């Protein structure tokens, strides 16, 4: 087909107003939140119905056009940077919540529903959808599933994969594949919905998603503990878990981040502290009281120099504001902000922090570290100016070193931000050559023309 004829086909499927071919429109879909070079697609299409989504997938496959699905484009690993000359398919026209079932505690959604809007609708009905990535105000549920996004509540409540009960997705031929169900238990066939989690658009195009809902906790208590060393703070983390308490949230900030946040908002954070832990326990009111008391004791035993328990909603909010400020405060310091995602077993946090400090010193880089201490998921944040070529080379080297370190400690490349283009080159290092070969074989059968988000995760062959 000629280019004009193909465009006409897209217009027939999605409506002319939903097909964008102009230079400015295409440029606006050439990047995402990762610090990578942008790539212009040939065409951008915004289907309004699930049938159109399927038909578009088939059309791309029939014509060998690379297809990249895009939710909100907030991923931090280049997952929505299109293939040159490819098609970007937007899901934000597919943003209906189809069902929220209070009796059976599940919901059925289209892939473009915004995470926070969904969580709010669920909360209105007295239920709870826990995954809360920092980007939830804009990220989509489809994007969350494709990245297996996690959030502050990951430690106790798990991440997106723990809430995916089922899914319909389009295969490359535009056939609808169904997997999972509305029941709590379901072992019908391969767990294809599970296969789609963290697939980053490389195996299928998600249509309807069935998500599990849970009852909300009746009570919660938040506190902030100040430590004289990172070691003391991370031993506290280990000790809390060893005492069989699983806080809803357990976050950590290093001294650099504390100072930066304090400069940013002036909320009275202890700028001399080597580390801060922000902890929230939730559940039945009596249990919350109990657990808060134990956490308090553990913090003190491990040398916390100060402990502040939030007395009311306003104080609780102040605790979490400090955490929410971490990224913006750091981002304000320098033009480019590389938010990394190295994750290690909890016990290795002190060693990892030490390694990060060494790397920063050795390469003369500014690195602030905060993250989900409870699940070992750290966000070393490198502050730089991409235009400074010499420094940028050191940054790239620093990233390599961070992953070398994390992997040598039995950690992983990504706790939640995905592999995308950014980290595909490290894949064999964490897994094995055989793993990569297996994944590629699987992909080549499911997507023989290699049109589904090429080069992501498993790299270009």
């Amino acid at each position, binding site marked *: 087909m000629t280019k004009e004829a193909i465009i006409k086909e897209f217009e027939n499927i999605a409506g002319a107003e939903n097909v964008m071919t*102009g*230079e*400015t*429109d295409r*440029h*606006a*879909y*050439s*990047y*995402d*939140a990762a*610090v990578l070079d*942008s790539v212009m697609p040939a065409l951008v299409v*915004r289907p309004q119905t699930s049938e159109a989504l399927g038909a578009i997938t088939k059309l791309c496959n029939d014509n060998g056009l690379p297809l990249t699905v895009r939710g*909100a*484009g*907030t991923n931090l690993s280049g997952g929505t940077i299109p293939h040159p000359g490819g098609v970007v398919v*937007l899901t*934000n*026209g597919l943003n209906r919540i189809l069902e929220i079932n209070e009796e059976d505690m599940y919901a059925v959604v289209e892939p473009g529903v915004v995470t*926070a809007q969904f969580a709010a609708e669920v909360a209105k009905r007295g239920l709870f959808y826990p995954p809360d990535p920092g*980007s939830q*105000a*804009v990220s989509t549920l489809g994007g969350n599933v494709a990245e297996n996004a996690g959030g502050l509540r990951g430690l106790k409540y798990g991440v997106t994969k723990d809430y995916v009960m089922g899914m319909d997705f389009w295969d490359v031929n535009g056939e609808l594949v169904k997997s999972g169900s509305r029941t709590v238990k379901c072992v019908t066939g391969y767990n294809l919905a599970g296969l789609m989690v963290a697939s980053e658009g490389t195996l299928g195009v998600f249509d309807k998603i069935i998500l599990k809902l849970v009852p909300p906790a009746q009570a919660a208590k938040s506190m902030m503990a100040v430590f004289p060393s990172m070691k003391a703070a991370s031993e506290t983390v280990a000790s809390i878990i060893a005492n069989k308490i699983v806080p809803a949230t357990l976050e950590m900030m290093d001294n650099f981040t504390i100072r930066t946040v304090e400069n940013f908002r002036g909320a009275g954070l202890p700028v001399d502290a080597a580390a801060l832990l922000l902890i929230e326990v939730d559940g039945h009111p009596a249990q919350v009281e109990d657990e808060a008391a134990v956490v308090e004791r553990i913090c003190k035993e491990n040398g916390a120099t100060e402990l502040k328990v939030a007395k009311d909603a306003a104080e609780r909010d102040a605790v979490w504001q400090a955490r929410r400020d971490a*990224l*913006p405060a750091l*981002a*304000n310091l320098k*033009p*480019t*902000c590389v938010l990394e995602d190295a994750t290690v077993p909890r016990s290795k946090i002190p060693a990892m922090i030490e390694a990060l400090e060494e790397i920063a010193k050795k390469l003369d880089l500014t690195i602030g570290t905060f993250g989900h201490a409870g699940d070992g998921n750290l966000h070393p944040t490198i502050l730089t*100016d*991409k*235009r400074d070529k010499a420094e940028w080379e050191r940054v790239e080297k620093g990233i390599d070193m961070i992953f070398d370190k994390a992997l040598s400690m039995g950690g992983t490349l990504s706790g939640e931000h995905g592999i995308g283009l950014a980290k595909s080159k490290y894949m064999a290092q964490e897994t094995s050559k055989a793993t990569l070969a297996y994944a590629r074989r699987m992909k080549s059968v499911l997507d023989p023309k290699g049109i589904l988000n090429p080069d992501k995760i498993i790299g270009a062959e």
Partner: protein
Amino acid sequence: MADIHKLAQMFKELDDQLVGCMRCGMCQAVCPIFKLSGKETDVTRGKLALLDGLASEMLTDPEGVNEKLNRCLLCGTCQANCPSGVSVMDIFLKARAIMTGYFGLSPAKKAIFRGLLKNPKLFNALTEMGAKFQGVFTKKVDDMLGSSCARFNAPVIGDRHFNTLASKPFRKIVPELDTPAGSSGLRVAFYVGCVFDKIYPQVAEAILKVLKHHGVGVFMPAGQACCGIPALSSGDTDTFDSLVGINVDQFRKGEFDYLVTGCASCTSTIKELWPHMYKGDTSRTYDIGVMARKTMDISQFLVDILKVEPKELTGGQSVTYHDPCHLKNSMGITAQPRAIIKAAGCDLKEMTDAGTCCGCGGSFNIAHYELSKEIGGRKADNIIASKAKVAATSCPACMLQITDMLSQKGADMSVKHVIELYADSL
């Protein structure tokens, strides 16, 4: 017309500001235009990427970029919520100036800005004539809202329901003032602003009444011109500079402790854009700085300086308040107007999303009326759902827009400036 390479060079000047955007996409959550269209070119991140694309000569279609750049209310919501602290408004205004330098000003805008605004006498004379003859062209729609619509098919007016020009503009009612400080010991300069002068003189009168009541002396020079924001947002920095010049030359003749306005847009323009964007005669720079520092919204002045306090509820009329973007986003003023509504003895009923833009955006309303109407329509729905009897705000542009929207929905309520409510209660 300069060549595209030159244009790219000009945009390079914005480079230091553009790199601050980390492309996180969080602006998608707050931009009213993106909420409607869902298009990346309509949200800040996309617009900044387009400017960056021009600067790095990756794009060849400056016209296309300009068109997208203009699909923006300049409401500042994105800037107020940007985690990376990008100076979005500054970038957009500078970009518009560069674009206007490149493409030139449209003939219509040239006539309006350079022919009319720059020449307050002619502007005044023409609008006066307009006020006399407008009855021939318009018909009344809603008496409570005071709205009218076009009698004939008129392209610029379309199906708008608008407030007609006042039969007697404010400057004819009170040409100038220079009164000494009274019991408060304070003297303020009063900057009227063109919408109050020509369409809502009763609001300007209310401001004077309130100042008098509190024993505040007033310096109000004749010959005030527009604050310049319409010209600046169209990239016409020449007209902006000369309007700032006209105003400063009038105001530096008197002495005053504060400069007050009742127009959110004027306040933020004088306070933030005059010192920052004025590139004219440097002998005015000092006075511009002084005026900017002294500038206050009228509610802010009453509450922060005169310590006017909210009253205990006396079962007064129910009022809902819309936050103008130019007060909320650029100056963080949200509490004071609400305090004034309560000080007027009214029952404040908060609407949903009081802080989202009404969709007016100055010339945006003219160029993109359909979008403007859709955003404003949601605002009107929230206002109606609040079940209040009065929709109050602190900006005449918002008053016009809200009146249009409520009138088109046939709502049974009136639109007022908060200061009118307070003046009525004295």
